[in-house]
């Protein structure tokens, strides 16, 4: 029997649905789909209320990833695509969501999604995506006021973290915790570039570093890199982190240390997940745009 290859980078995919809602009784079913470079999410709203979501890995083609994410969110609800009245696509693959009524940038969608998750107090959002990161300032309605992105390379992003997980053989979800199981904080690795990360990590292990120390050093380097982007914008609290890396405390706590501001954490019992912020924002845009269309046709 062939030996199973363990994929340490593989984060758990997620499906959630609010069983207390009967979507058939809703007047407006809308969806947001975020096709990122590493992960894709779909969020479905029933009359503007969160009904279901699905988070999955992006495949080699954006339209298929979008369909897979949406099918996952609809699964088990006896819902089909025809039941969804308005779809907004976002993320790097947003223009490749064939069934979307409109594409909206992930900047506007993350701001809107964060505003829904945290409330009007959220003013600064750091989105740490699969292959880029962005800092967004928004008003109390979640409308973007100022943004900056750094999309030159995958350093300090989800993809970079996956490479490290694989190189060190540590499940990605354990990286944050293990990066604090060290005697003292090591200096950040000199190079967070994904291309060199693997060889640098292997080099440090050969030099006698423990796996946890390498993880700490890598998390610190990532935190340092994104912090310089955050500081360029100046942070106004509340500060919230979206995207997959928001779940990596090893990076989050080191960012907080550098910028001297704590990020808002969602309550432990929440059904929300910072990784769906973009798709959630897209679904909220879809709801507002559908209402606008309905109002316009009622007036016509």
């Amino acid at each position, binding site marked *: 029997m062939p030996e199973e290859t363990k994929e340490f980078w593989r984060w758990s995919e997620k499906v959630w649905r609010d069983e207390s809602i009967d979507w058939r009784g809703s007047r407006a079913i809308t969806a947001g789909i975020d096709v990122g470079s590493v992960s894709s999410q779909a969020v479905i709203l029933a009359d503007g209320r969160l009904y279901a979501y699905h988070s999955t890995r992006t495949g080699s083609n954006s339209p298929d990833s979008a369909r897979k994410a949406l099918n996952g969110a609809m699964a088990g609800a006896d819902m089909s695509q025809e039941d969804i009245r308005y779809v907004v696509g976002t993320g790097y693959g947003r223009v490749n969501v064939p069934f979307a009524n409109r594409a*909206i*940038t992930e*900047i*506007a969608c993350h701001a809107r999604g964060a505003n829904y998750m945290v409330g009007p107090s959220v003013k600064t959002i750091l989105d740490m995506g699969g292959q880029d990161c962005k800092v967004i300032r928004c008003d109390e309605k979640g*409308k*973007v*006021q*100022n*943004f*900056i*992105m*750094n*999309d*030159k*390379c995958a350093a300090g992003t989800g993809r970079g973290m996956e490479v490290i997980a694989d190189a060190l053989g540590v499940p990605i979800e354990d990286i944050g915790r293990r990066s604090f199981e060290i005697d003292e904080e090591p200096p950040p690795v000199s190079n967070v570039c994904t291309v060199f990360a693997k060889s640098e990590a292997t080099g440090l292990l050969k030099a006698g570093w423990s796996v946890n120390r390498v993880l700490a050093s890598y998390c610190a380097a990532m935190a340092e890199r994104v912090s*310089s*982007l955050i500081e*360029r*914008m100046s942070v106004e609290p509340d500060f919230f982190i979206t995207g997959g890396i928001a779940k990596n405390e090893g990076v989050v706590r080191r960012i907080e240390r550098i910028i001297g501001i704590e990020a808002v954490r969602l309550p432990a019992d929440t059904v929300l997940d910072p990784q769906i912020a973009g798709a959630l924002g897209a679904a909220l*845009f879809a709801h507002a745009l559908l209402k606008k269309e309905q109002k316009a046709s009622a007036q016509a």
Partner: protein
Amino acid sequence: MIANYGYQDGSGEYYITIDTDRCIECEGRWCVGACPQSLFVIEADDYDDEVATIAEGARKKLKEKCAACKPAGGHESLPCIDACRPGAISHSW
């Protein structure tokens, strides 16, 4: 909205900032014709306002794209900034 397009790398920070609130009322769209590299594109933003953005394919190459306007010996002015009468454009380098 203040939109910052660009990146930082080992050699420095390369951002073009556009205050898109000023674009909403702009009648001339002067940036589009002024830039020899055609970096400025007028598009509807996410809130349906027609504003200037930096062409998607150029956002990771600003250092190279703007090099001719910024000779090593220094520069006194830039075509884009001079052309934009509402004063919406600035560069970080």
